[in-house]
């Protein structure tokens, strides 16, 4: 899993899930967040595109590409969850 050269973008994306307020602002007004992070136009365009390929082109770390998709793609966030297994985990624990 190699780190790309786009340090500023990587640092921004690494903060998304560590700072709930930043994540909320990204979802509400991503252009403002891009501007505050002083991203280049090329970086902004790649983030607007959001595809793995576009993120790869600007050097986003593969794991952080996944973070970004989880942040902006509700379908993916609804798929990558253990939510459906929690009732059974609770039941198994209860039954020993």
């Amino acid at each position, binding site marked *: *899993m*190699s*780190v790309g050269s786009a*340090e500023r973008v*990587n*640092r921004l994306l*690494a903060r998304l*899930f*560590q700072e709930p307020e930043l994540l909320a602002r990204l979802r509400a007004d991503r252009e403002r967040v891009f501007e505050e992070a002083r991203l280049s136009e090329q970086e902004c365009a790649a983030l607007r595109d959001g*595809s*793995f*390929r576009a*993120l*790869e082109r600007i050097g*986003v*770390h*593969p*794991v*952080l*590409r*996944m*973070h970004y998709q*989880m942040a902006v793609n509700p379908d993916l966030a*609804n*798929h*990558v*969850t*253990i*939510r*459906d*297994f*929690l009732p*059974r*985990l609770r039941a*198994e*624990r209860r039954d020993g």
Partner: protein
Amino acid sequence: MAEIVAAVATSHILMSPAGADEPAARVFDGMWRLGQHVQAARPDVIVVVSNDHMFNIGPEADAPFFVGCAASYVPFGEMDIPRDEYRGDAQFGLGLIEHCRRRGVAMEALGSLRPDHGIAVPLLFVNPDRAAAVVPLLVNHSRQQGVAAMECWYLGQLLGGYISAVAPASLRVALVGAGGLSHRVGYETMGVDERFDRDFLADFERGELARWREMSVEEIEAVAGNGGVEIMNWMMIAAALPGARASIVYYEAMPSWLTGMGGAVLRPHEGDGRSRVDDPA
């Protein structure tokens, strides 16, 4: 001397079972069986060998290994993982770091950590009542140059030696190697390589891991994807238990989860009779 009373290896993710209910149920069953195996051994401490997915350890971190040395851990909580608190064992973690540093392994202590799914999902199965203390041992697969399989193997040997020779007597230790199998994170062509997975599992069961620990990061990634390097987390617990006999408990290719899902038990006392681990240094 302390004793390794149980050891399991397992994939460390679950996703929505939609469209794959039966294989997903088999994965859950397999993970639960692994969990029961660990629970039955009544460990005092569970060492989980896994990796952080950049929820705690950022792209700038360069150390190959990190060890949790906190008094307690609350999961990061991504993927709707419950934020239930686990006890830590800081003394065990600090002792392990000192033991390994003296033998030339670069490790960093984490005084605080919010374990992500790499640690927290296995804990839901192996430590559901949170009775055992937890020691996270994280391999920094996300750093630019990765971590060589041979380095992981050596650290696994040191881990076994630390438990045998240094950790407090009468301590009952369980090992969990968490991650894999084949998967690609962050690429358009995310997918599972079932042949890779089954080859690795067969060799893991036979205890024939020499060719795997000699593979480079690039060689593993080329076949099994950048997430496939997590098989090193499995190899570390095998290295900690020379002579143990492995049994595969479950495998599902799980294309909808983009991950080859597998799990195994290692039985320390059913191999060649050697449960004590000699210090390689």
